[in-house]
């Protein structure tokens, strides 16, 4: 699954550490999501979406090749 987390975080000028604190996960988790090594759970995806004030599907995108 692709995502726009790094771009959105950069827009807010947050570090991975700051985003991790705001979402209640580790910095490693944020890094793994940004590098697309790990897909977040639905609750975490919703939390992230609410934090950025955007719908989940605008941040996390299903890769067409994965379908």
């Amino acid at each position: 699954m692709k995502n726009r987390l790094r771009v959105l975080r950069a827009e807010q000028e947050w570090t991975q550490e700051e985003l991790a604190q705001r979402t209640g996960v580790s910095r490693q988790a944020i890094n793994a999501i940004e590098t697309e090594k790990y897909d977040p759970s639905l609750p975490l995806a919703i939390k992230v979406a609410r934090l950025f004030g955007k719908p989940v599907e605008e941040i996390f995108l299903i890769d067409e090749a994965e379908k």
Partner: protein
Amino acid sequence: MEGVLEMADKRKDRFGMVVFGLCVLTVGMAVLHMVLREQYLPGHPVRLTMTGLLFVAFASFIFVYTRMLSRMDEYQRQIQLFALAIGFPLSLVLIWGIGYFRAEGLLQGGDPRDLPAVLLASYAVGFGVAWLRYK
């Protein structure tokens, strides 16, 4: 408050490595126990001390591991799941292998007391693979 949050977050980042370190330490103590028990007679203070320390190490590993699991975030739990998914079957294969080889007259000199160390070593291998996969 910021400092406390930062410290908590750094601790959260290190959960996996602490568990892994404790696992390596426990396996190391098990190996040391194997070496020392060949050199001292049963009941010798060195053997008794080492046995006690080994028990404490195993108990600490279980205590720390279960406590940390409950505090880990979903990503860290995913790594642990991956580690166990490799470590558990690997330990079964190793234990079966040891049993079969012993039945064929190979690998003599082992002891059932050492099997928990095989489990922990398998977990350490699983964690290593998981860490490489998700780092």
